[in-house]
């Protein structure tokens, strides 16, 4: 994992800690944990996550990218951002 990934992961963990009921402990989310299956986010939470990614990284997530393999874990979101954002 490079520095950029570390920064993005910290940003995502901070977002989860502030917005979802983890008791403020961002480390409670495993990198590969399914956010939906673990009950960390629900259908409204998915809206929040997509909105956060779009706002924070100034991108538009098209409908065809709305897949669990892009957004259902921190690792998946990091891989998606790596593909979408310029070096």
């Amino acid at each position, binding site marked *: 994992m490079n520095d950029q990934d570390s920064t993005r992961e910290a940003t995502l963990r901070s977002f989860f800690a502030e917005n979802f009921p983890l008791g403020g402990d961002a480390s409670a989310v495993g990198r590969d944990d399914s956010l939906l299956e673990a*009950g960390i986010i*629900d*259908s409204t939470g998915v809206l929040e996550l*997509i*909105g956060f990614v779009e706002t924070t990284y100034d991108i538009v997530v098209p*409908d065809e990218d*709305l*897949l669990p393999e892009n*957004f259902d874990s921190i690792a998946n979101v990091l891989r998606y951002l790596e593909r979408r954002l310029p070096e």
Partner: protein
Amino acid sequence: MSGEPAAGAFAELLEFDAERALEEITSWLRRTIAHTLRRKGVVVGVSGGVDSSVVAALGARALGAEHVLAVLSPEADSAPETLELSRLAVAASGIRAVEEDLTPVLDALGCYRRRDEIVSEIVPGYTSEWKMKIVLPPILAGTRLRLFTLVARSPSGEEVTQRLPADAYRALVAAMNFKQRARKTLEYYHADRLGYAVAGTPNRLEYDQGFFVKNGDGSADAKPIAHLYKTQVYRLADVLGLPEQIRARVPTTDTYSLSQTQEEFYFSVPLRTLDLCLFARDRGLGAGDVAAVSGLSAEDVERVFADIDAKRRAAAYLHAPPLLVEPA
């Protein structure tokens, strides 16, 4: 797995004994209303849908029609057929009814104004003359994450579909929830003045999956069909002899200004399919068992199971009573 044993596992759902259920529920209602709650009758909010019509009819059977009051509370966004079907349900059960126009109450609360302010920020050109609804894509349509979408239609028929930001979604639902909460306030007004209890009308899918507004339609003193799957409610409606127009009505939310089915707003699968999946989840049956009787693939059933589990997690807050400090 062959179809026959799987169908046997679903016998309690598919071969529901409606006559027996009718006896059980009416007996329970008599005991519960008169003895446990010590009330003289029940108030039922009747919407013209099959669930509330069945509860009204059950109340009449159990307590006598003269001990049941239907509250009909249409508002500006109600479907044109709502009041007519509600009156039909009232007539079918021979009960008394009061009609309360909810529109001025909702106006005073800012329900419509708040909705229009939110939607106009998302849909350019939107005015209060437009109609709107929120939809959620079907579970069985693919593997994409399903996001709430706003659908708005102009008076000239132009339709705009827009993904909803989370804040806007929450604010829209919060504004619409005024409707269920205002209705419940009126039901309790009538219950208080008559010494009645309020009968809730959720079926098992709604109750289990959290398809209700906390302190709105989720509030009641007794819920006589909350243990019944939707197909079982339809069987009860048959036995009770409810009018065909009510039994044939597609279950709607009747909350948004554009017509919106319960399936497209919340459940995301046909209700008969959800009955089978929820029954299987309740009884520890597997995806293969549902696949054998439903025509769905086991993979699709697993996705419905996952959605059921997610909705149950979300519903825990809705079901929770006010929590108290427990001194050490």
